[in-house]
């Protein structure tokens, strides 16, 4: 059986490397999470919201045209893009917001890269009547202007972050600082399987509904488990959610698709498992893109959601024990896959999720036609349309 985390660790990875000011808050959160995850009333409330507000279960769609075009296995898409707010992020936000309420917190803060997690947090804050502040790198507010306005419509205040590289890691820094200032009334709703314990385990727990549903749906539709599950990985929440219930099925390959940016041989990459080294940052021991002096490196990806210099500690653990594979996917491959899925299936994926589609294209011939593989389609791509047009040299707004 897969080892459950002990004391917030996955093997040697994880931990609680945060300033003393936050320690009582993370300890309190850890206790609350471990209590409520087994509390029937809490789970009823959570599952009710997943069903009636987020729209779960999400579909498992057979991608017939794509499968035919590639000529390999039957390819299924787990449709997290069909959730309310357009991505898997809502699963975790609902779970954490319910815990925050039970802890008496009245305000949610969050970091966001692409804006998907920020939008999900702002949405749930509006629904549950909580205050909401979102921290977003200045660079990302430009790349994802539509999502900024969306969050403001939902009543959240968006704080552009100018420090450092003005992207996701800097948004995390700023959210951590704000949490340190306001820890008594504020919950920091971390959007990925990262940060200090209990966040990696808690976020995975709330996202694991994805693999639970995939397992039931694929057995119902195919009568057997998939040969592989693919998901994109930045911090790694959708991947952890899609992998979790398959970890103890060694015949299922688990494949995390990292953002290679312009290539892992260049400095313009965000592939932490493929190019990172062991480090301690943002509350956790894991793999990070950094220099030999331990300074965190600026990273790059076309995808604002994967543009993070580290990865969740459980992924690092799965990588080190050889249970999951982590592969790099370039911007160019992701854009091609974005276009391919749009054209063949009429589904526009988030550019993040397109990284997983791209790798499925690459490895399709490793499987027979009687096998099936599942791609976790973590989000919808409407937010990316303008950026992809720009990538292809077309400016949609300034003629």
């Amino acid at each position, binding site marked *: 059986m897969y080892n459950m985390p002990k004391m917030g660790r996955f093997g040697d990875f994880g931990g609680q*490397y945060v300033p*003393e000011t936050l320690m009582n808050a993370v300890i309190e959160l850890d206790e609350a999470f471990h209590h409520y995850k087994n509390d029937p009333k809490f789970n009823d409330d959570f599952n009710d919201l997943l069903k009636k507000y987020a729209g779960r279960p999400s579909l498992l769609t057979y991608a017939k045209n794509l499968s035919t075009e590639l000529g390999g296995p039957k390819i299924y898409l787990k449709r997290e893009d069909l959730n309310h707010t357009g991505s898997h992020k809502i699963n975790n936000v609902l779970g954490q917001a319910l815990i925050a309420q039970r802890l008496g917190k009245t305000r949610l803060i969050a970091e966001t890269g692409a804006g998907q997690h920020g939008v999900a947090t702002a949405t749930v804050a509006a629904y549950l009547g909580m205050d909401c502040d979102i921290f977003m790198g200045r660079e990302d507010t430009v790349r994802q202007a539509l999502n900024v306005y969306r969050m403001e419509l939902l009543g959240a205040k968006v704080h552009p972050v100018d420090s450092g590289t003005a992207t996701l890691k800097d948004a995390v820094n700023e959210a951590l600082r704000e949490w340190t200032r306001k820890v008594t009334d504020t919950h920091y709703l971390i959007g990925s399987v990262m940060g200090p314990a209990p966040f990696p385990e808690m976020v995975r727990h709330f996202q694991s509904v994805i693999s639970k549903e995939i397992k039931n749906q694929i057995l119902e539709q195919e009568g057997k488990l998939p040969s592989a599950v693919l998901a994109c990985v930045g911090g790694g929440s959708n991947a952890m959610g899609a992998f979790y219930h398959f970890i103890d099925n060694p015949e299922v390959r688990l494949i995390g698709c990292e953002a290679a940016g312009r290539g892992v041989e260049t400095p313009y990459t965000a592939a932490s498992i493929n190019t990172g080294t062991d480090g301690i940052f943002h509350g956790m021991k894991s793999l990070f893109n950094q220099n030999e002096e331990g300074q965190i490196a600026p990273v790059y990806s076309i995808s604002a959601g994967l543009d993070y210099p580290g990865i969740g500690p459980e992924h690092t653990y799965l990588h080190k024990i050889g249970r999951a594979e982590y592969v790099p996917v370039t911007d160019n491959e992701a854009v091609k896959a974005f276009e391919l899925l749009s054209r063949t299936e009429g589904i526009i994926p988030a550019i993040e999720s397109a990284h997983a589609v791209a790798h499925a294209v690459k490895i399709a011939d490793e499987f027979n036609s009687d096998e099936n593989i599942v791609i976790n389609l973590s989000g919808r791509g409407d937010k990316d349309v303008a950026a992809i047009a720009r990538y292809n040299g077309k400016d949609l707004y300034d003629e």
Partner: protein
Amino acid sequence: MSLLLQDIMERIYTMNRINHAFEKPGAFIGFLTGGDPDKQTTINCIKALIDAGTDLIEIGVPFSDPCAEGPVIEKADVRALENGMDLEGIFSIIEEIRKNNQNIPIVLLTYYNPVFKYGEDGFLKRLKEVGGDGLIIPDMPYEESEEMRKLTKENNLSLILLVSPTSNERIKTIAEAGDGFIYVVSSMGTTGVRSKITTDIPSMIKKIKDVTNVPAAVGFGISTPEQAEKMCETADGAIVGSAIVKIIEENGKESPELVYNYAKQMKEAALKGGLKRQ
């Protein structure tokens, strides 16, 4: 002298350097970021701090992502890194100060990752070799500090632990493990100048004093002589960072004289507060 005896003497001598800083009431502790804006200015500012009567020097190791720091020190870290400051540069600053001064205690404030990446034991050995006395790691809470506490002891260095306004019942455990001095975080949030400090510092100090004789110094948000005086009425010392870094930000290479003037009045105020306490 036998090696063992030498080791014991060395240990006593080093411990004395930090202890010595707190022998008189109202210690004044000055912080600056190493290499901001360049190595020589840092050295000159440290000398100015020492000349002004500063009792302990805290050198910040610049880090790309200083999450516990407010904007003033964050910008200083950026300036230092942009000007090429690295760990060897930090060590050489201490070496340079030690050429003329064997008495002033010097500690590093560093995020964990640079230490981890260098190798904990190697880092501590190098720090000891150049004449450092201890270190503060703001993103290493008590729960993650066991190994580092062991290694610092083995290397005759102090790992300075922090307590904060949210620590409550944790204060006792942390204070019992305290070494060198206890860093009392005066207010919620990151480092930086604050006009008012509303935390109940006396009750935090009392909790510490109940379990340990290790001195307790207060930091975060202290910038005026009045604040330093008030803090030293209950604590063993006052730590000032952002206000010094701000002077360096505004005056660059011309800072040492201004740092001297500022530190002098702060030291006097700290002493005044400390004397009231006795």
